[in-house]
């Protein structure tokens, strides 16, 4: 039902390309943890988004019609261009354009958890997913979500709800921040200042959400693709 619906000739073309790029895919698969089928699908989408170019710019993502109504549109797009989400440590800043590899790397944050994973792997997956969220909130990259940043997040979240959102967003962010502070630093003198949410605190406050199992989308495999093709072409 996707708009990228594979027509037979396209599939033909795809197969040829796959032959050429098999080694490339394998390498990417190793890096990102996707299967080659999934990478193939994502590459197809990538080419569609970029207009058959090697890289994607913000404008490309900006013009996706389905995103238009998403209150988090800007943050989501930003996340794709954020160097911190490329699995390389300690690189802060943003890219102007991203290639397929970058695209896949960002996407790989949304892989479903592995089928048979031990406790340690689950913790690692959870950490990595939370880190992605944290980076989305922490816009200036200093490792702390300040109150201003948090307010911004809530405001964006409510941005599609009209006029009543603004003041309430602030109140909600403040209440949330207060909650974080009281969970993580329960005893503060009146003069102390809670600077903001560190990643450790972030993990702490969201430990109730089973992020490792919830933060995923189903990436298409070959079999599901064919299944969907048969259903309802849009």
């Amino acid at each position, binding site marked *: 039902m996707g708009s990228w619906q594979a027509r037979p000739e396209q599939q033909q073309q795809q197969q040829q390309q796959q032959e050429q790029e098999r080694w490339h895919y394998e390498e990417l698969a190793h890096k990102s943890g996707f299967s080659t089928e999934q990478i193939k699908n994502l590459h197809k989408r990538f080419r569609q988004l970029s207009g058959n170019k090697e890289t994607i710019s913000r404008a490309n993502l900006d013009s996706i019609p389905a995103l238009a109504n998403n209150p988090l549109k800007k943050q989501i797009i930003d996340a794709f261009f954020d160097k911190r989400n490329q699995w390389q440590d300690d690189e802060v800043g943003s890219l102007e354009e991203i290639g397929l590899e970058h695209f896949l790397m960002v996407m790989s944050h949304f892989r479903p958890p592995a089928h048979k994973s031990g406790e340690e792997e689950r913790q690692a997956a959870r950490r990595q997913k939370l880190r992605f969220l944290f980076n989305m909130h922490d816009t200036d990259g200093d490792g702390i979500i300040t109150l201003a940043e948090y307010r911004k997040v809530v405001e964006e*979240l409510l941005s599609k709800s*009209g006029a*009543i959102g603004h*003041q309430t967003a602030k109140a909600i962010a403040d209440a949330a921040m207060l909650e974080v*502070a009281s969970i993580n630093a329960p005893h503060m003198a*009146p*003069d102390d200042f809670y600077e903001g949410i560190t990643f450790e605190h972030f993990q702490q406050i969201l430990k109730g959400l089973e992020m490792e199992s919830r*933060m995923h989308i189903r990436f298409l495999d070959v079999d599901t693709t064919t299944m969907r093709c048969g259903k309802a072409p849009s």
Partner: protein
Amino acid sequence: MSPRRVFRHPGGFGSGLPERGLLLLVLLMLLQGSLLPFGAASSPDVGHRDEADVHAEAEEKHNFTKKPFPVLSFEYKHIQVPFEISLWVLLASLMKLGFHLVPRLPGIVPESCLLILVGLLVGGLIKLAGQKVPPVLDSTLFFFCLLPPIILDAGYFLPIRPFMENLGTILMFAVVGTLWNAFFIGGLLYAVCQIQPNNPSDLHSLELLPCLLFGSIISAVDPVAVLAVFEEIHINELLHILVFGESLLNDAVTVVLYHLFEEYSGVGSVTVLDGVLGVISFFVVALGGVLVGAIYGILAAFTSRFTSHTRVIEPLFVFVYSYMAYLSAEMFHLSGIMALIACGAVMRPYVEANISHKSHTTIKYFLKMWSSVSETLIFIFLGVATVDGQHNWNWTFVTVTVVLCLVARVIGVVGLTYVINKFRIVKLTTKDQFIVAYGGLRGAIAFSLGFLLDERHFPLRNMFLTAIIIVIFFTVFVQGMTIKPLVDLLAVKKKQEAKRSINEEIHTQFLDHLLTGIEDICGHYGHHHWKDKLNRFNKKYVKKCLIAGERSKEPQLIAFYHKLEMKHAIELVESGGGAKLSSAIPSTVSMQNIQPKKPAHAKSEDRALPKLSKSREEEIRKILRSNLQKTRQRLRSYNRHTLLADPYEDNFGEFLLKKQKMMALDKKIQDMNNYLTVPAAPPDSPTLCRARLASGRETDFNPTRQQKVDTVGPDPQAYSTKPALDSVPTIQVDLASPQSPDSINILDEFRRSDLAAAAAAEEGEDDGGLKMKAPSGPHERCDAGEMDAGTREKLSRCLSDPGPHAEDEDEDEPFLP
């Protein structure tokens, strides 16, 4: 059939029985809860009953001729039915009460087991008394009176999110699992009945179709039993919703199978066509039930849109529409249970947005009350009916049934899980499978369905009933009692604290949008995409139609926040205006701590504050007193006049808060000296300035500042989060004022002159700090805000953050004359 017939006693009571007998009767009834008739109760010789009756009649005649004015007359028959119903309910409630009074008992035995035992006891007593046991667990009574409250309670409070997330698994268990169970049990039972041809018994006369019918009756997991047991073991949400959801949704399968087999067991054969029709019928029954429920749910939501002037009957609409949905579905032999579930689940979000908080509480309590009484009655009746029934005990049949039930359940769950796990992200572990299989309790629905069977078509009905009862007892007693230790033993994940934090809610929403966005970028439309579409449709059209006023536009997060605020306010009041905002986390963190501070923040600049003179204190107290008194009186009069047109209806938290304040006043005044010692923030500290703004209203006579206050909003520190429409609940929770404004107020009086200028300068930079102003202009709050803004106090913090105890420790000094 009406309850009248159900409860009617065969013996009957003559009118005009001696008073002594009545007293004894009532006493005995209350004592034992049994329905011992007079004859049996007052004298052991039951055989003389007729004689007594004749005697009574004669006496009556005698009385008639004499014809004195009856000063006190007695007619039991007149009130018999409602009286006996009340007695049963009373018995059930008392048993429930007593159950929890016995120490350590609830930890060992599930309530359901004990209630069945009570039922057995009562039934036994009635039987001992030589009376015919009333057919209490009559199917009509069960399906029309006892079952609906339980199902509505379950449907109305159904956790939608986990339910929808696991819908595939639940449907798989409910539909395929139940079908498998029915055919496996039915088929194998038939096979077992056919062996041993040399040993003639009535089992051989059993044909395949009755066996399958029996299988379909016995295979359905019972929501009542599951709820009763699972509520006590506090299993994690996933397992709970799996077993519970299955028990709810398998109703459609059971209904279809039941009708199918019942229809054709007379004919003796089922053709392929009938099978196909049965499949179609299943979809009709299931989807039709959901449709009927949804229609009534939407109607209820739409009705609740207009109830803002007649708040008292709001809860009634919820109940009546649901019951209508149930009856309408039953009328077409659709699945009434699914209709009720759909009705409750559909109406809830809209109804809750429309009705007042009080009505919401009423609905909650009524549903809980009804369902728990129903549940208790069902289990007691099950016990009574066990004693009552004409049992046809057949060792082979009963044993085979119990074993087959267990085997079928285990095979079904394991097999289905194997398939389901291929599609699930969160796999069901072996432990989970065990609990799901073990939690498959059978209950009163099966019994009632068996009870409905026609003895002419099913000569072995009594044997069926016996077997059903044994299976129910086995699952409820053995499985129900051992499941708790097993859960502990296997260390199955328990339910975590359900209290949801605001951060979690923010991130749940955030995640929804994020995943939708990522799916859109990936270009394929998964369920996040469709969920988002549905949400948008709901927000754009449905909510507008079904929800009155502003709340229709309220996003979920804000609604959640308001609920949280409300809860905090209530907690605050209940804890006696105590210190803690949330009782879970003992914390001294206040809003002050998370605020970005000005860099040049001097720690403790001026600790030395002028002491209050006696006369000054008196003056302040007088002002506070009069203000508080006024609001109190006004609120009182509002509440006394009418419930319906009470504009403060929803602000009951505030109302209580004020009452509390009155009592806390003396203490507060005493405490004030503490605040005087709080290291005062420097003149440009946002906190202090805001506090001053807040308090400015009541005692600060500086006219220019007064104006400023008005433009900012009546109380910048209170979380007044939205336009204070009268119909919208607003509760001002003060999350965060470390110092009571009253205390600041006193400070203020003295420091006004040198702070006035600073305050004026402060206005501009309030944004950086914490300032919760009413989002709308001052006029919108005029009446609600006006009268209490001045006296709104910051109870929450004043005790929690008394500041360092410094110089003056004269708390003990009595301020009040």
